[in-house]
């Protein structure tokens, strides 16, 4: 029996009768999806709808001399052929910079390339036709005369004087640079008993959402309104941006988001081809649909990571870590992505390295450079996998150098659980973390001493297994500190509007969005509990800028902690309003009443007074019977944004147990553990599955996934035959445990859980791999993904 049934609790930690908080309530939207009745944008068909296909640059960098499209224009089914300069009359370009990333710069990016294509895959011409197939047929008839330009592809040489500057008006290829010194790293390294240094390399990979990016834009000249059906994580953000660049009021734009086939940070950015699609709809005055095919996904969905980090750690013989130092270089393609910029990941790496540990001495530099490759931007766990793998890789190197157990060195250096509030070396602020409790718990879950004994025993039989840890911190519940302070028009707060209808059902309209994480379930659990009705009476509405409170959407693990708190508070407010109405009907004191399981009761003894639907019936249909002067308000809105802390940091630890086939270089993952602390657990099953999905995404980065480019900027493996993904057969079972340290910034106390798995998995797998091969004196494996070839090279076998 593997399916744990949801267990009904009595009073929860949040002290409400019949609480749904802490219960594994099934998500309300799942039956639809299991029956193939989802409503993904790819499925959508509208009257008069046409399809756009983009002719994309085959060159990484080329001047567009002429575009000959005569034949295409007269091809069957073709409605329009539109070039970059033509579309630039409809939609203005954008620049992906924010003021809080000091000095970040980028160049204007157009919906369709104007004069010059800057990466292989950038759209240079659009063909709109009755069907996608006809649009693609016509693309093949377009003749573009390109003048190939030098492609800057190597981040290492992008800043050399001899390297051409991609955007000459910017002066150089440097997008952003940040340097930080804390404490006295030079003195600390000098006083260390050992200093270990290496360079970690993180390959480019990408999100590979199962449903590619999809958008249907419908400009209605009769209404002067644009309705956009878009698979996005942030509808209000895209509404604002579509309006701005089409020169419309934002009230003229409605963004609707129904089911989204995976997001992971891929669908939170502005993409040129989606901007082109909305502009084409405005131009053609009819619905236009664009769905990326898999090759387009590989060449235009944001890529992630692609960091090279020179890193150093100092340690004393007793295991005390004295200092960390990093020098990070990352290549982000030809444009900083709009509107969140492509500087955030490197900035996060600087913030997070060394974060779990007490060492106050830290030197960091991060440089972000332009290249003629696909754009790079924020993807699940932004910066965390890099910072964690670098930190934890260094800690394991230090342990090996001084001959200390890898769990023990962590125990000696992790910030003590009673030392909070605390400040990390980079200046990040921690409200309360639980590193030691998490470490203790994972060691017990693994039966660590037994596992070590097994590992040693098997070596004698030529079986090489490794155990790798990764302690981590995770940025969740972001306040305006993430984007708003830098000028991005991305809502940091979120809201929930509740409406009691005439039968006692509650409609919840929320600014957060659902892409499968279970956000709608979290909202329903919060409202059902704080208002006091069975969860079946809750109806959730998200993903519609006309019908939800202005909000940020779902990203950076903000949905439960921020959107959930707003819904929780709205439930309380609606309860107070309903009880005021009930009290006026019952001639009672509202303070002496409560709502439990959909019934108005005496709060002291639970005696039933009247059903909720009776209150609603009187308020809506017989308000004439209410006392004079009493006006019932059965719609309420509440908002929430974290104020006490810029981010709710969470923490946890992962462990990987794996076996290396030293003849083939193949890595077999035997088991994986994660203990994390996301504060109040609203729905244990959903948290566990966020962790498991995230771990597997991190394992993909560690072992398989890599966007391979040649030196001319050609992507070599932009398909699922050549780009390896984690599939079921290679993945281990993942055991998840929790430590609960609620944030005091909200009443719910929930922090985020979406990044934890992806944050820690690559580092723990890397450490396990090196742990397995250490007795064989293998070279250190520090370049992800760890392919069989790289493993064999480390062993000196090839």
């Amino acid at each position, binding site marked *: *029996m*593997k*399916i744990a*049934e949801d267990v009904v609790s009595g009073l929860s930690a949040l002290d409400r009768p019949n609480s749904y908080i802490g219960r*594994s309530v*099934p*998500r309300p939207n*799942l*039956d*639809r*999806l*299991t*029956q*193939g*009745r*989802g409503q*993904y944008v*790819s*499925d959508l*068909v509208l009257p008069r709808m046409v399809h756009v296909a983009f002719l994309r640059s085959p060159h990484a960098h080329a001047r567009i001399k002429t575009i000959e499209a005569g034949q295409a224009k007269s091809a069957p089914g073709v409605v329009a052929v539109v070039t970059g300069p033509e579309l630039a009359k409809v939609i203005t370009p954008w620049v992906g910079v924010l003021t809080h990333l000091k000095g970040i710069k980028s160049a204007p990016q157009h919906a369709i390339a104007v004069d010059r294509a800057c990466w292989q895959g950038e759209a240079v011409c659009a063909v709109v036709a009755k069907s996608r*197939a006809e649009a693609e047929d016509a693309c093949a008839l377009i003749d573009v005369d390109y003048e190939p330009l030098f492609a800057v592809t190597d981040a290492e040489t992008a800043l050399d004087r001899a390297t051409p500057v991609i955007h000459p008006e910017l002066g150089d290829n440097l997008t952003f640079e940040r340097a930080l010194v804390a404490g006295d790293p030079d003195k600390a390294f000098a006083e260390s008993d050992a200093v270990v240094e290496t360079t970690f390399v993180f390959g480019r990979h990408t999100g*590979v*959402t*199962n*449903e*590619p990016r999809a958008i249907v834009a419908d400009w209605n000249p009769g209404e002067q309104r644009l309705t956009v059906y878009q698979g996005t994580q942030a509808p209000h953000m895209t509404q604002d941006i579509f309006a701005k660049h089409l020169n419309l009021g934002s009230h003229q734009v409605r963004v609707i988001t129904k*089911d*989204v*086939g*995976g*997001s*992971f940070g891929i669908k939170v950015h502005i993409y040129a081809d989606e901007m082109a699609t909305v502009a084409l709809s405005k131009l053609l005055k009819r619905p236009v649909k664009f*769905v990326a*095919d*898999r090759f387009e996904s590989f060449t235009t969905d944001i890529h992630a990571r692609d960091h090279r980090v020179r890193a150093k750690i100092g340690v004393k013989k007793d295991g005390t870590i004295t200092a960390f130092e990093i020098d990070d270089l990352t290549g982000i393609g030809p444009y900083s992505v709009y509107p969140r910029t492509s500087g955030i990941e490197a900035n996060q790496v600087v913030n997070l390295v060394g974060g779990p540990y007490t060492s106050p001495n830290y030197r960091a530099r991060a440089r972000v450079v332009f290249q003629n490759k696909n754009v790079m931007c924020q993807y699940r766990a932004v910066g965390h996998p890099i910072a964690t793998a670098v930190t934890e890789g260094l800690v394991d190197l230090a342990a090996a150098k001084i001959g200390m157990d890898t769990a023990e060195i962590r125990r000696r250096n992790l910030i003590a659980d009673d030392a909070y509030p605390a400040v990390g070396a980079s200046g990040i602020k921690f409200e309360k973390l639980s590193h030691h409790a998490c470490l203790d718990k994972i060691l017990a879950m693994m039966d660590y001493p037994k596992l070590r004994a097994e590992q040693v025993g098997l070596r004698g039989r030529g079986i090489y297994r490794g155990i790798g840890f990764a302690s981590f911190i995770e940025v969740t519940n972001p306040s305006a500190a993430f984007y708003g302070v830098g000028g991005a028009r991305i809502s940091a707060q979120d809201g929930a509007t509740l409406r009691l209808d005439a039968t006692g059902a509650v409609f919840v309209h929320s600014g957060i969005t659902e*892409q*499968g*994480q*279970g956000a709608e379930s979290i909202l329903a659990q919060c409202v059902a509990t704080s208002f006091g009705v069975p969860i079946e009476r809750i109806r959730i509405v998200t993903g519609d800028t006309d019908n939800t409170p202005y909000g940020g959407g779902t990203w950076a693990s903000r949905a439960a902690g921020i959107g959930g708190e707003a819904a929780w508070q709205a439930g309380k407010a609606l309860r107070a309003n309903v009880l005021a109405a009930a009290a006026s009907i019952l001639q009672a004191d509202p303070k002496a009443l409560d709502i439990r399981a959909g019934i108005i009761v005496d709060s002291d003894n639970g005696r039933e007074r009247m059903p909720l639907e009776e209150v609603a019936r009187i308020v809506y249909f017989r308000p004439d019977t209410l006392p004079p002067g009493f006006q019932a308000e059965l719609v309420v809105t509440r908002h929430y944004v974290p104020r006490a802390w810029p981010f709710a940091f969470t923490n946890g630890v992962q462990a990987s147990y794996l076996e290396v086939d030293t003849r083939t270089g193949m890595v077999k993952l035997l088991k994986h553990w994660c203990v994390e602390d996301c504060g109040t657990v609203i729905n244990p*099953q*959903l948290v566990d*599955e966020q962790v*498991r*999905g*995230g771990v*597997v*995404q991190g394992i993909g980065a560690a072992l398989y996934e890599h966007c391979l480019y040649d030196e001319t900027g050609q992507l070599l493996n932009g*398909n*699922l*035959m050549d780009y390896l*993904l*984690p*599939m*079921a*057969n*290679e*993945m281990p*079972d*993942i055991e998840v445990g929790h430590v609960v340290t609620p944030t005091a910034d909200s009443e719910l106390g929930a922090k985020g859980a979406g990044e934890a*798995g992806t944050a820690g998995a690559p580092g723990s797998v890397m450490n396990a791999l090196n742990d397995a091969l250490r007795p064989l004196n293998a070279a250190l494996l520090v370049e992800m993904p760890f392919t069989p070839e790289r493993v064999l090279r480390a062993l000196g076998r090839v």
Partner: protein
Amino acid sequence: MSARHLDINMRVNGEAVSTRVEARKTLVDFLREDLSLTGTHVGCEHGVCGACTVRLGGEAVRSCLLLAVQCDGAEIETIEGLSDSGAITDLQSAFARRNALQCGYCTPGMLISAHELLANGTVPSRSQIREHISGNYCRCTGYQAIVDAIEQVAQTRATAK
């Protein structure tokens, strides 16, 4: 030169379909665009991700690797048909209770693969389940919940016999 369009006859979810179809059209595009059966999804269009899995003559196949005209005379079942017939209700319920889907995009194909695995009534091991669904890509779940749900249905069906 062969005809650009051909007449085809098939049964889809038990209903007779007689129509004229573009010769180059894949089965998945035909199901989605011509028959509005949008429960079958397009993920990679080259036979790797499994989102387009349907049943052709009782066998799970990739509808992106078949042309509609190849299916002339065939019997096809999609997630809509399997849902309406009740054939996989227990699997669907187990997937929902175990949260074996997040975005749900892979789910119709995953369910059809699972349905095929469990068709002979045996209880597969977890590694056999993992191997059988290793042609169905899921980015959200990390697969464990899917394995759990399939395993439980196999055990329940075996107990009920």
